[in-house]
């Protein structure tokens, strides 16, 4: 993107070495600035029409271009008149390299019990993230409340796709037969309780979900301020929803809405990661203790609900169904 914009903007200033390469290849109308009797400058530059250069490089010309080491040989033939004594010395200087904007979230390989969930709210199809958890029915998936219920209306067409990656579903797709959410979320949309659970049907062969993909342990009423690793499939830019990502950090209270009782960790995962699991500690082997719930504009922190007694009751009802 940057390169395209830069080329389209018209003019580029190139180093003397690059100009030499272009001019020798033929056709570029460029010449170093002439000396006017003043001391020889240490740097030469020229302005080149970048659009012309782009047009010049046809596939044929690129294929027949002479390797640059030939130019180096010619430069040596012109004479090597410098001496080490003449090399100008100055203060040590460095320029830092430039990288693309990094994300806080880290790319991950698929994890068998973490996946994407797809569902319909009203007439719109949505995608979130979820995690298979240990349960008596071996068929329970944890996700966000806002991924199972909106303003009292439950989702339809709910399906869990564990270990999704780039369209592949190595463990199949599991359709839900029941959805559970805390009453406080369903009736009031209270962010304190933004958690939901889906109970899925067996697969076509009669296998149960966690017998196939495994299931995370769950924990409730834990201490605050723990270190968590959260996972999800962020789909909004700069992510594309095709692979799993994670964030790790120590949880702190939401300073903007402390009444939610939620906790946040540094994380820039975007829409689509909602409902992804928070595991206590580092990695995906820990017990689940929250989900990706919400964030603020221009603030790379992901918040999750405190899993207390009401969410525990919701889990217990789903897991025993």
């Amino acid at each position: 993107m940057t390169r395209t914009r830069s080329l389209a903007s018209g003019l580029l200033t190139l180093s003397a070495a690059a100009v030499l390469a272009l001019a020798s290849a033929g056709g570029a109308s460029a010449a170093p600035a002439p000396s006017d009797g003043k001391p020889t400058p240490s740097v030469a530059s020229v302005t080149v029409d970048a659009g012309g250069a782009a047009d010049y490089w046809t596939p044929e010309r690129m294929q027949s271009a002479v390797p640059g080491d030939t130019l180096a040989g010619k430069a040596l033939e012109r004479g090597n008149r410098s001496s080490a004594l003449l090399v100008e010395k100055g203060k040590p200087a460095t320029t830092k390299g430039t990288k693309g904007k990094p994300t806080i979230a880290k790319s991950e390989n698929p994890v068998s019990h973490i996946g994407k969930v797809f569902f319909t709210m009203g007439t719109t199809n949505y995608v979130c993230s979820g995690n298979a958890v240990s349960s008596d029915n071996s068929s329970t998936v944890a996700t966000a409340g806002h991924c199972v219920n909106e303003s009292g209306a439950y989702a339809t067409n709910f399906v869990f796709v564990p270990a999704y990656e780039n369209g592949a579903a190595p463990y199949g797709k599991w359709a839900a037969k029941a959805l559970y959410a805390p009453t406080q979320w369903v009736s009031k949309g209270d962010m304190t309780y933004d958690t939901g659970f889906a109970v899925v049907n067996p697969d076509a062969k009669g296998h149960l979900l966690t017998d196939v993909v495994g299931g995370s342990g769950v924990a409730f009423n834990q201490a605050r301020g723990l270190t968590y690793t959260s996972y999800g499939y962020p789909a909004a830019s700069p992510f594309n929803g095709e692979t799993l990502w994670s964030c790790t950090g120590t949880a702190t209270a939401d300073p903007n809405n402390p009444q939610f009782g939620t906790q946040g960790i540094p994380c820039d995962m975007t829409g689509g990661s909602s409902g992804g699991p928070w595991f206590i500690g580092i990695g995906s082997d820990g017990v689940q203790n929250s989900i990706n719930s919400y964030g603020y504009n221009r603030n790379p922190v992901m918040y999750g609900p405190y899993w207390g007694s009401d969410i525990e009751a919701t889990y217990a009802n789903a897991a025993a169904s």
Partner: protein
Amino acid sequence: MQQPPSKPQPDDDSVTHVDLTQSPEEVLEYWTKERMAEAKPREIRLPEPGSRAADQD
């Protein structure tokens, strides 16, 4: 394919649930590659610190 779920049932005061009426085959058939690719990412992003209004998508 857009079948309404059955009416939410209160489990106790703190929990509600719904039993979905769709068969697994119907649900799996619904999610074609195209529909999965076009599904909108769901998220709650609060517009400004201190605001309680949730921007849900």
